[in-house]
C-alpha cells in the first residue's frame, strides 16, 4: 500500500493478513508499518517500513520515528538522483561543444585586455589556425593579436576594447593566420558579460568564414565579368525582376532606346511608357510582351520591323524572352535579348534572289540551247522555202507570159514574204535566247543612251519628238549589260513608244541615279521611257512580257518579242521593270538596275585574245587545232609532250589548256594537275580518242563539270566548247562580281 503513495499500518497478525507472504510467516512477524519516500516532484521514490515480531503498542510513536527516517531517506535519494542527472548533462554539453563546427571558448581578461586567459575551449580552433597556433593561444592568450592580419588588427582591437568597456557584445569578421602562413577569414561573435573580481569574463564563438568569403569574392568577380560581357555584346539585353521592373540594361539597349541606363533601371515598362511619352508605343509594347512572357511561362521569340529612337531608319529586330521562375512557381525575372537582324534579313533576301536568278539562269540556258537548235533547223527549212520561191519566180520570168503568170508570181511572192517573216521570228527567238544567257558585259549607261539618242531621233519623222534627259551613273559604277545590249533594249522600247505615238506627242527618255536600297551597298540606275500615245489596256498589261504576245491587232509586221527580250535583259542585269499605262494616256516603262562596281578597262578596246596552250603528241592534230583556234581568235601555243610544257617559262600564262589525255610521256590529267600551281587561272580542257567512260575504266579521273572532247571532234564543236569553258567561272575561283 505504501507504494501507492499512502501510509500502511498492520498492528498485529500481519502474516495472517498476507498468507501468501512466506517471509512474514518464516520470520514470525506480527506487525508492519510503512510510509512512501517522496521525490521532489511528489513522485514515489521508494518505501520505508518497520517490521516486528511483536504487535505495535504505540502507533503514534512508530509513525513519528518511521516518518523521520523516511524524510532523511527521501532527501538522500533526491540528492543521488540529482547528481546522476548533472553528470549526464555535463557530458551532453561537452559533446555538443566538441561537435560544434566552430571554436567555442570562454576567457577572462584584465580590464585593459593585456592579460587574457582561456577558461574553457572546445578545441575546434585547431582547425581554424592549425594545431601549433592553437597551442600558442592556449599557452598565452595574449598572442591572439599577433595572429591577426596586420590590416585588421587596429579595427579588431577597437571593437573588443569598446565591448569590454561597456560589457557589450561583438560580431565581427577578420583574418587570422594559420600554421601554414595563410590567413583565413573568421567570424567572431560573443559578449563581455560579467566581472569576477577584477577579471572580465567573456564567451565567444568563432566560425570559419574563409570558404564563404572566397565564394563571395568569386561571386562578385563573376558578377562583374558577366556584366562586362553583357555590356559588350552587340545584342540589346534587358534583365527584369519578377515584377517586371528593369534591373539591368546593357549598352546596346541604351543606344537602341536612346536613354541612359539610369533612366530605365528600377522602372517597369508601363511606368516608362508614362514617363517617356515620346517612346510610349515602344514601352507599351515591351510591357505587353513582358506580361505575355510571364503568362506563357516559357521562352518565346518574335520578329518585328520598326523604328526605334536609336535607329534613324526602320530595322528588323528579333526578340527572345526567357522568363525565370522560383521553385515555388512565382516569377523571379525575365531575360530579354533584342537583335538587329536587318543585315541578316537583307542577306537572306539577297541570297534568295541570287538563287532564284541562278535557277532562272539555268532554265534559260537550257531554253536558250533549245531555241538555238530550233532556230537552226527553222532557218534551214526557210532557206529551202525561200530558195524555191526565188527559183520559182526566176523560172516564171524565163517562161513565156500566160494569163496565169501574174497570179503565180503573186503566190510565189506571198510565199517569200511569209518565209521572210518567219525568219524574222526565228531571229527574234535567237535574240531572246541570247538575252537570257549570262554575259559579262558592262557599260556606262549614260554614254550608251547619249550615243543612241541621235540614232533614235533620226528614226522619227520629227526628231524633236524625242526629249532626252540623262544623268551619268555614279563614278566607278556600271550597269551589267554590254553597250550593244543596252542599245538594243533602248531601241526596242523606243520603237514601241514611237509606234504608239502621234508625231506631235513627245517621247521622253530620262535616266538618273538612285541611292542603294536599305541594307544594300550598290547604287541603282533608273531608265524611264515615257510616251503620251495610245496606252496599253489594263487586261493586256500582265501578258506584255510573254514571248510572241503582241498588243497589236495587226500581226502583219512584227511578232511581239521586243518586250520579252527587253524584260529578259533587264532581269539578267538584276533589274526590275515597271509599267504604268492607261489607254489614251500613254505608257511609261521604268527600269531600275542595280549597279556593279566598274571592271577595269571594261570600256577599253576589246579584251586580249585568250591564250590557249595545245598539248598533243600528233603533229597533224596540233596543226589542225592551231588553225581552228587561231581562226576562232585565240592565241595559240603548242607543245608535244609533258616535258615540253614543263620547260615553258611560267610567264607564258595561258588562259586555257587543251590537253590530250594520253601523251607519250604521261597522262594529260596529271599534267594539268601539276600545272595548277603554276597557272592557277588556266582552265584545262581534255581531248581523247576514248570516251569518258572508257577513260574512267582505265583509271583516268577527269575533272567534274568539264566536257571531254572525243576525237574526232569537229572544229565547230571545239570552238563551242572553248567558248563555254571561258564563260563558266572556275569553281574554285568564283567570278568576283
Amino acid at each position: 500500500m505504501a507504494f501507492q503513495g499512502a501510509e500502511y499500518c498492520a498492528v498485529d497478525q500481519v502474516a495472517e493478513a498476507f498468507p501468501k507472504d512466506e517471509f512474514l510467516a518464516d520470520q514470525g512477524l506480527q506487525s508492519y508499518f510503512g510510509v512512501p519516500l517522496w521525490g521532489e516532484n511528489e513522485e514515489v521514490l521508494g518505501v520505508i517500513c518497520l517490521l516486528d515480531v511483536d504487535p505495535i503498542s504505540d502507533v503514534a510513536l512508530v509513525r513519528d520515528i518511521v516518518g523521520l527516517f523516511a524524510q532523511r531517506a527521501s532527501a538522500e535519494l533526491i540528492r543521488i538522483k540529482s547528481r546522476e542527472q548533472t553528470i549526464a548533462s555535463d557530458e551532453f554539453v561537452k559533446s555538443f561543444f566538441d561537435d560544434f563546427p566552430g571554436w567555442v571558448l570562454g576567457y577572462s581578461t584584465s580590464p585593459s585586455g593585456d592579460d587574457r586567459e582561456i577558461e574553457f575551449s572546445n578545441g575546434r580552433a585547431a582547425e581554424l589556425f592549425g594545431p601549433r597556433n592553437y597551442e600558442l593561444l592556449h599557452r598565452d592568450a595574449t598572442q591572439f593579436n599577433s595572429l591577426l592580419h596586420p590590416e585588421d588588427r587596429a579595427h579588431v582591437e577597437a571593437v573588443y576594447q569598446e565591448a569590454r568597456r561597456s560589457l557589450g557584445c561583438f560580431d565581427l569578421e577578420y583574418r587570422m593566420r594559420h600554421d601554414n602562413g595563410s590567413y583565413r577569414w573568421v567570424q567572431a561573435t560573443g559578449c563581455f558579460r560579467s566581472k569576477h573580481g577584477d577579471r572580465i569574463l567573456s564567451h565567444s564563438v568563432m566560425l570559419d568564414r574563409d570558404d564563404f568569403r572566397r565564394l563571395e569574392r568569386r561571386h562578385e568577380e563573376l558578377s562583374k565579368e558577366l556584366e562586362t560581357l553583357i555590356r559588350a555584346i552587340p545584342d540589346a539585353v534587358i534583365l527584369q525582376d519578377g515584377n517586371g521592373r528593369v534591373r539591368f540594361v546593357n549598352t546596346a539597349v541604351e543606344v537602341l532606346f536612346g536613354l541612359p541606363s539610369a533612366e530605365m533601371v528600377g522602372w517597369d515598362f508601363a511606368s516608362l511608357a508614362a514617363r517617356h511619352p515620346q517612346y510610349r508605343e515602344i514601352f507599351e509594347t515591351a510591357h505587353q510582351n513582358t506580361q505575355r512572357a510571364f503568362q506563357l511561362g516559357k521562352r518565346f521569340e518574335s520578329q518585328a520591323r520598326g523604328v526605334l529612337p536609336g535607329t534613324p531608319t526602320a530595322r528588323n529586330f528579333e526578340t527572345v524572352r526567357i522568363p525565370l521562375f522560383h521553385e515555388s512557381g512565382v516569377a523571379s525575372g525575365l531575360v530579354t535579348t533584342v537583335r538587329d537582324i536587318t543585315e541578316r534579313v537583307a542577306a537572306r533576301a539577297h541570297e534568295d534572289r541570287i538563287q532564284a536568278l541562278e535557277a532562272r539562269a539555268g532554265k534559260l540556258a537550257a531554253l536558250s540551247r533549245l531555241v538555238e537548235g530550233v532556230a537552226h533547223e527553222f532557218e534551214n527549212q526557210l532557206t529551202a522555202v525561200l530558195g524555191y520561191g526565188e527559183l520559182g519566180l526566176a523560172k516564171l520570168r524565163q517562161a513565156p507570159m500566160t494569163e496565169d503568170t501574174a497570179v503565180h508570181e503573186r503566190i510565189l511572192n506571198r510565199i517569200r514574204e511569209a518565209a521572210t517573216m518567219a525568219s524574222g521570228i526565228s531571229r527574234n527567238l535567237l535574240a531572246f535566247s541570247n538575252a537570257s544567257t549570262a554575259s559579262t558585259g558592262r557599260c556606262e549607261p549614260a554614254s550608251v543612251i547619249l550615243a543612241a539618242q541621235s540614232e533614235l531621233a533620226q528614226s522619227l519623222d520629227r526628231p524633236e519628238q524625242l526629249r532626252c534627259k540623262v544623268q551619268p551613273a555614279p563614278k566607278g559604277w556600271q550597269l551589267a549589260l554590254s553597250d550593244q545590249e543596252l542599245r538594243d533594249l533602248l531601241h526596242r522600247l523606243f520603237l514601241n513608244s514611237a509606234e504608239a505615238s502621234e508625231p506631235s506627242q513627245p517621247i521622253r527618255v530620262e535616266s538618273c541615279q538612285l541611292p542603294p536600297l536599305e541594307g544594300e551597298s550598290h547604287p541603282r540606275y533608273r531608265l524611264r521611257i515615257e510616251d503620251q500615245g495610245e496606252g496599253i489596256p489594263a487586261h493586256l498589261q500582265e501578258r506584255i512580257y510573254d514571248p510572241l504576245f503582241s498588243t497589236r491587232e495587226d500581226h502583219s509586221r512584227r511578232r511581239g518579242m521586243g518586250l520579252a527580250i527587253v524584260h529578259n535583259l533587264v532581269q539578267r542585269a538584276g533589274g526590275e521593270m515597271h509599267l504604268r499605262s492607261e489607254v489614251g494616256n500613254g505608257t511609261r516603262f521604268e527600269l531600275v538596275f542595280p549597279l556593279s562596281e566598274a571592271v577595269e578597262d571594261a570600256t577599253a578596246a576589246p579584251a586580249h585574245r585568250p591564250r590557249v596552250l595545245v598539248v598533243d603528241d600528233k603533229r597533224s592534230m596540233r596543226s589542225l587545232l592551231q588553225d581552228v583556234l587561231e581562226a576562232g581568235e585565240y592565241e595559240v601555243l603548242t607543245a608535244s609532250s609533258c616535258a615540253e610544257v614543263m620547260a615553258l617559262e611560267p610567264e607564258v600564262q595561258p588562259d586555257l589548256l587543251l590537253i590530250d589525255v594520253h601523251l607519250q610521256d604521261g597522262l594529260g590529267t596529271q599534267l594539268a594537275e601539276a600545272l595548277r600551281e603554276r597557272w592557277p587561272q588556266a582552265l584545262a580542257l581534255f581531248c581523247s580518242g576514248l570516251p569518258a567512260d572508257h577513260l574512267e575504266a582505265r583509271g583516268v579521273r577527269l575533272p567534274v563539270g568539264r566536257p571531254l572532247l572525243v576525237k574526232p571532234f569537229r572544229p565547230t564543236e571545239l570552238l563551242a566548247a572553248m567558248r563555254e569553258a571561258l564563260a563558266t567561272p572556275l569553281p574554285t575561283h568564283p567570278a568576283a562580281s
Partner: protein
Amino acid sequence: MSRFTILVAEDESLVREMLDDTLQSDGYEVLTAEDGQQAQRILERQPVDVVITDLIMPERDGLELLIMVRDHYPRIPVIVITAPSNNIYLPAAKRLGAAYCFEKPLVLSTLLAAVQALLEDPIAPSSERQ
C-alpha cells in the same frame, strides 16, 4: 565554153536540193556532198571551181573543209552558208579564208551574184556577210 562546177556541201537535204536546182538552173554543173568528208572525196576525184559549204555538219564540218581546201586546193574559193547562231563560227570561217559568208535563209540572187563574181575574179577579197 565548158560549164563551171560548183560543189555544194550541206547536210540538210532540202537545202542541198534547192541549191542544186537553183545553181543548175543558172547553168552550173553541181556536185553535192552531205558532209565535209564526202566533199573531200569529190575534190580528190574531180576539179571544182567553187565550193559552197554549210558550217555545222556531221563528220567533217565546214571549218575543217575550209582548212582542207586552203591547204590542198588554195585556188578554189569557198562560200560559207550557215544558220544564224551566236557569232562564233562565221568569224572563224572568215579567218580560215572563206571568200563569202552568208547567213540562212539566203537571198539566192545574192548567192548567185557571189558565185559569179568569184568565177570572174577568183581572187576577190572576202566580202561582208549578208
